[in-house]
């Protein structure tokens, strides 16, 4: 293990320890509730990034999975008369329902690209909201209530916080694994140029659909947890267009396509959003301020904090190394690509490292075919 990897591992452990200690240090239930929402959104934004950030297919329909997860556990807990801690055993059901929905959704939506894809996701989103209003088992416009949890008020938020933290950390770890895998390279090759990726031997549909389903599973899980925490759900709150916008802006603020970016974005935006809603209770002014905040994020930091920051660090290292001419150039180049500016082409990467890391399968995937291509 190199010194850099050890530093990085130590840093991650320290961050996790700080996150775990958060509800023990800040015991005010209002503050810990902000923490719960921030972690739920970190998981949801990370899930959005795994599909949309890596593949370039911007989805504005992830609320379909969020809401379906919430409704799945809500309906199951109601019909099976579950209560107490046992309801958390239903969370895998939320993930499963979201996964089942994502397959036909993906098969239809992923046939089209760019704007058309975005609009199809919006259309599916509205169909689901309508279904939540009109189906006999969803409780119509009054929605569903979560089972009552007989916990002490002072520490009520803590179990939610730790489940959400585990979900957010797991999502980030999964994003990291996917990003450095062959699968991740194929996704990013599709983002850069789908037709060319196909020419290099990537089969776009299964790759895109797999990422879409992974994203759906995590979002469904987050939706189920969110429902237990907020204790009630109505069609417009479960299938909320603002949810879709929020997770996308979170990913953009942190850095689309980077691993830590969406988490960072969620931890910055969600508490801010909650504070605005709390501060201006009539709800309208907070909406205006939220819109202004989103505009500022997109116009002032179009590439996100992580890519902009890592570029600054790379530039600083390059300046330092020019002053002290040692052979550290290779390490810096590595650091630059690891941070992954979103504009960088993954096409070359999809051809290169993947082939070196693992033997090409018969029939030739991206790595194998790409290695032979000029």
């Amino acid at each position, binding site marked *: 293990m190199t010194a850099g990897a050890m530093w990085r591992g130590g840093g991650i452990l320290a961050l996790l320890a700080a996150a775990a200690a958060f509800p023990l240090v800040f015991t005010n239930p209002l503050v810990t509730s902000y923490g719960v929402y921030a972690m739920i959104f970190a998981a949801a934004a990370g899930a959005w990034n795994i599909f949309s950030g890596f593949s370039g297919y*911007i989805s*504005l329909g992830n609320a379909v999975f969020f809401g379906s997860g919430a409704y799945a556990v809500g309906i199951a807990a109601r019909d099976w008369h579950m209560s107490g801690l046992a309801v958390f055993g239903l969370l895998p059901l939320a993930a499963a329902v979201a996964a089942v929905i994502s397959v036909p959704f993906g098969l*239809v939506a992923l*046939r*089209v*690209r*760019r*704007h*058309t894809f*975005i*609009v*199809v996701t*919006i*259309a*599916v989103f*509205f*169909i689901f909201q*309508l*279904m939540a*209003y*009109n189906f006999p088992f969803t409780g119509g416009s009054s929605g569903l209530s979560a089972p009552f949890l007989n916990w002490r008020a002072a520490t009520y938020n803590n179990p939610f916080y730790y489940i959400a933290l585990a979900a957010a950390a797991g999502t980030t770890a999964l994003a990291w694994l996917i990003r450095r895998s062959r699968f991740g390279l194929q996704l990013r090759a599709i983002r850069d*140029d*789908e*037709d060319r990726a196909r020419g290099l031997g990537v089969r776009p549909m299964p790759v895109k659909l797999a990422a879409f389903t992974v994203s759906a599973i995590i979002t469904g899980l987050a939706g189920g947890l969110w429902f237990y925490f907020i204790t009630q759900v109505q069609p417009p709150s479960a299938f909320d*267009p*603002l949810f879709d*916008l929020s997770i*996308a*802006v979170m990913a*953009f603020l942190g850095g*689309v396509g980077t691993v830590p970016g969406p988490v960072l974005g969620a931890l910055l935006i969600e508490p801010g959003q909650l504070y605005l809603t709390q501060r201006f209770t009539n*709800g*309208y*002014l*907070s*909406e*205006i301020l*939220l*819109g*202004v905040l*989103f*505009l500022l994020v*997109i*116009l002032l930091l*179009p*590439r996100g904090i992580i890519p902009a920051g890592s570029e600054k660090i790379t530039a600083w290292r390059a300046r330092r190394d020019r002053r002290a001419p040692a052979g550290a150039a290779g390490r810096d180049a590595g650091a630059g690509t690891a941070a992954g500016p*979103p*504009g960088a082409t993954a096409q070359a990467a999809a051809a290169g490292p993947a082939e070196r890391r693992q033997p090409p399968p018969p029939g030739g995937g991206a790595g194998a075919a790409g290695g032979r291509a000029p």
Partner: protein
Amino acid sequence: MAREIYQAIADGILAGGVYALMAAGLTLIFGVLDIINIAQGILVVLGAYLSYALLTRLHIGLFAGLLITVPAMFVLGVAIQWAFIRPLRGSERTSMTLLVTFAVALIAEGTLYEIFGPDYVQLRSAYVTRSVHLPGFYLPDIYLLGFAMAVLLVLALYVLLYRTRFGRSVRATMQDETAARLIGINVNRVAALTFGIGVAVTAAGGMVYGATGGGFNPNSGYDLISRLLAIIILGGLGSIGGALAASVFMLTLESVVDIWSPSWAIAVFYAALIVVLVVRPAGFLGRKGVRAQ
């Protein structure tokens, strides 16, 4: 039953004309700037509220009020394009412009809530309540007037695009922005004016929308934009003729399904979009290039 269906078809065609007007603006903006203006829905609602304010505060009639609201919305559109769309460049432009217009929609929605509150309002006037009785049909005047105005405005848009020098620059920019730049077209100016025109027609569309539907409030923008997006995708992105055909088709379909199940009528709208896209991904009159990445 047959009579109900005929009436529903007539209603659908008339309402389709109004939606065509709003969708034409959206698809024009897409064609020239290659962006989807999510704020189009709330801008339609804003147009309706402007007409409402002129009507109730200053007692200016709905059609006369358009002489004020259309130029105002044009200026607003140019301003939005100049301030928020123009600065965006680079590979993520598609998604960024989407988020920017979404944020603009949020601000507009919040502002309308602040000023007018969440109550549903409707534009009322003499010709809103009058109607024409034909044998077997019942056609409200406002629908006929709105339809006539929509047809006129779409014709005017057509003349502007196909019979003027400015229209030639617009179409050249739609075909190939770089080439248009090379032959001396001021692409930035074309983009700003097109965005302004696309938003200006929403003032007219919003007025008729506010007078014909079952009332509106600031939240109506979401429902509108999702319908408009379905229409322009179905018609083929960037095709004004396609937007017209798709508006009439979708609204007629919705109006007919509404006889049996009012609550599911709107779902048919989106279901139709998905079915058409599975069969024909480029839409009714879509250009092939639009799908390419």
